[in-house]
C-alpha cells in the first residue's frame, strides 16, 4: 500500500513540476509574469479606490488590497486552469492507469507553488514598509490557507470532471469568477461603511471570509474576524460549510464521472 502511495506522490510531484515549468516555458520574463499580473491589478485598484474614490480606507489599506488580490489571483487562476486539466490530459488518461485525481492535485499544487512564493514576497514587502501587524494570532493564517486550498481543490475536482462532458462549463466558470470578484471583499473590507447593509450576505462567501480573516491575521487587527460581523452562530459556519460542501461535492462528482473519462475523451 505504501509503495502505491509513494508512487502516487512521485507522480504528483513530477506532474506538478512539469506544469509549473510549462506555464513559464518559452516566455522571456517567465515567473515574473505571475508577479506582474497581480501588481498591475493592484496599481489600478489602488488608484481608483484610494486616490479617486477615496473609499480605500482603513489601516494599511495598500497591504489589505495587495493581500486580497494575491489570494484572489490564486483562486481565479487555479480554478480557471483546473477546469480543463482532465480534458487536456486525454492522451495520458487514455493510455495509462493511475488515480485520476492526481492530475487535479498536481495542477493545484503547481499553482500553489507560485502562490506561496507570492505570499512570501508580499510579506517581505509588507514588513519592509511596516504594513503588517504580526503576532501569535498570525498563526491562524495557516488554517486559513488550508481552508483556501480545500475550497480550490474541491471546486477544481468538480469543474474538471464535469467539463469533460459539458464544455460550456469553461465559459460559465469564467463569468462566475468575474462576478465573484466584486463580492469577495478584495477592494473593500466587510467592516467598511459601504457594505454594512450587505455584510451578512457577502460574509457568507468563503472567499470574502478567507481574505478578510487573513487581513485580520496578517495585516491589521482593526479588520474584525468575519465571524464577529456575522454574529448569528448559524451564519458563522456557512462559509466553512460551503468549503466543506465544495470538497465533498467535488470528490463525489469526480468519483462518479471518473470511470467514463477514458471513453469520452
Amino acid at each position, binding site marked *: 500500500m505504501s509503495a502505491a502511495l509513494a*508512487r502516487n506522490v*512521485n507522480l504528483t510531484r513530477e506532474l506538478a513540476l512539469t506544469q509549473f*515549468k510549462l506555464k513559464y516555458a518559452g516566455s522571456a520574463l517567465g515567473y515574473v509574469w505571475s508577479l506582474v499580473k497581480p501588481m498591475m491589478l493592484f496599481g489600478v485598484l489602488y488608484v481608483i479606490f484610494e486616490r479617486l474614490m477615496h473609499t480605500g480606507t482603513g489601516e494599511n489599506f495598500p497591504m489589505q488590497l495587495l493581500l486580497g488580490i494575491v489570494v484572489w489571483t490564486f483562486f481565479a487562476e487555479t480554478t480557471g486552469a483546473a477546469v480543463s486539466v482532465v480534458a487536456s490530459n486525454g*492522451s495520458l*488518461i*487514455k493510455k495509462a492507469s493511475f488515480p485520476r485525481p492526481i492530475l487535479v492535485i498536481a495542477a493545484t499544487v503547481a499553482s500553489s507553488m507560485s502562490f506561496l512564493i507570492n505570499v512570501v514576497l508580499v510579506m517581505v514587502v509588507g514588513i519592509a514598509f511596516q504594513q503588517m501587524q504580526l503576532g501569535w494570532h498570525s498563526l491562524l493564517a495557516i488554517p486559513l490557507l488550508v481552508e483556501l486550498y480545500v475550497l480550490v481543490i474541491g471546486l477544481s475536482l468538480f469543474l474538471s470532471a464535469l467539463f469533460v462532458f*459539458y464544455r*460550456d462549463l469553461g465559459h460559465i466558470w469564467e463569468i462566475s469568477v468575474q462576478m465573484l470578484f466584486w463580492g469577495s471583499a478584495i477592494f473593500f473590507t466587510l467592516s467598511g461603511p459601504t457594505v454594512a447593509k450587505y455584510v451578512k450576505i457577502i460574509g457568507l462567501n468563503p472567499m470574502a471570509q478567507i481574505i478578510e480573516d487573513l487581513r485580520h491575521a496578517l495585516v491589521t487587527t482593526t479588520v474584525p474576524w468575519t465571524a464577529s460581523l456575522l454574529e448569528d452562530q448559524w451564519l458563522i459556519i456557512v462559509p466553512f460549510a460551503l468549503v466543506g460542501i465544495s470538497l465533498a461535492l467535488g470528490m463525489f462528482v469526480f468519483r462518479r464521472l471518473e470511470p467514463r473519462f477514458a471513453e469520452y475523451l
Partner: protein
Amino acid sequence: MTPAISVASVSKRFRVPLDRSNTLKYRMVHPRSTSKYQDFFALQDINFDIPAGEFTGIVGHNGCGKSTLLKILAGIYKPTSGSVTINGPVSPFLELGVGFNPELTARENVFVNGAVLGLTRGELTRRFDDIIGFAGLEEKVDQKVKTFSSGQEVRLAFSVAIQANADILLMDEVLAVGDAQFQAKCFDIFAQHKRAGKTVVLVTHDLGAVEQYCDRAILLDHGHIINDGAPGEVTAHYRRMVGEASDAAALAIKHGGRIALDPANPESRWGSGEVRVRDVTLVNDSGEEHHTFTSGHPMTVAVNVDVASQVNDLICGISLHRADGYTLAGTNTFICKVPVKCPPAGQAMHLEYVIPELTLLGGSYRLSIGLSSGADAHHYDKLDQLVEFRVVDESGRIGVFELGGAWTISAGKPAAALPSAEATA
C-alpha cells in the same frame, strides 16, 4: 498457482450517443429528454486466464475489440460486466506514443512518463542513458518532443515502457511503427522478457511475430473470442478469415443477379449495350461460387450474357489485374480462335473460361470482362476491374505467379576437372 491475468465473463458496452447533447443549453432546453444512445458491444463474454510467464498474442481485424480488451486489462476502461483480476504490477504500453507532452524535451518527458509507469526519479536517472540509447535518440535528448517524428516518439515511449518494474507487460501495436532495425530491437526485448519469465500480452497485426514469440494466441472477432490456442493454429484461422472477409467486401457487388457499378467509379463500366453481361461468377474446384481461391487449384470464370439486339461480330475478352490496376494477363475468344455465335435478340448466352491450375500467388486481384466487335474494337459492354477475388497461398513463394520451373540437383564436376581460367588465357 494463481494466473497473472484472469478475465471472467467480461463484456464492454459503449454507448454511442446519436446526438452529442452535451451542452448545458441543450440540457436546459430539453430537461426531460433522455439522450438517444446506440449500444455497441465492443466485447462480449470474454473469458481467459493467462498464467504467469506466458507470452500471449491477441490478433483480429481492426475494430474486433482487441485494443478495448487491452485497455480493460490495463485498468483504463471499466468492464460493463464481468471481472478482471491482475496479479502483479502492470506496465501498459498502449497505442502510439504514451501521452508525451510535445512542449517538453525528451529528457523531461522521460521523467514524467516514467513517473506514470511508477518509476522514481532516482531509478530513471540511473537508467536514463539506457533509455535514450535504446531509442537511439542520443542527439535529440534536449529537444522538444514536438520536433520528433512519430517513429522517434514511439521508440522513446517504448524504451521508457520496458524499464518499468512490471511483471506484466501490455503492448499494443508496438511493431506497427519504427524501422526494421528498431523492430529487431523490440524482438530482442521480447525474447529477453520471455527468458525472464514475464507475462506479456501483445496486440499486433504481425502474425509472424505471434508465431515466433507467443506461447499462445487469441483471435477476436466482433467482440468474441473465436479461437484461443497454439499460435500457428490461430494465425492460420485468422488468415483464412481475412480471405473470407474480403469476399464480403468484394468490389463486384451483386444486386439481384446483376453486377452493380462501382459507385465510386462510374467509369468502370461502359459500352453500347447490344449485348450485356448479366453476371459474373467465380467457381472453385468443388463447383461452388467463391471469391477466395487457393494457388494451384482450378478457377472458372462464368459469364452470363443477355442479348438486346443480335450482333454478328462478337468477341469475349477477359483480363487479370493486380490490386493496383496493373494488367497481368489478358486474352479473348478471337486470340484463342474460339468463334462466338451471338444468339438472337432476347436470348441469353453462357460463357466459361476455365483455368485448370491457378498460377497466381497470394494476394488480391481483379478481373475485367469485355464484349466487343473484332472489326472496329467497338465495346458492347466492358466491365473494367469490377470483379475482385483473392488468392491464398501458404507455400512462401513470392511474387505474383508460380514460375512453373523444376529443380534438378545432381553431382557436379569438381573445379579442378574444368580447364582453369589461367590455362585458357
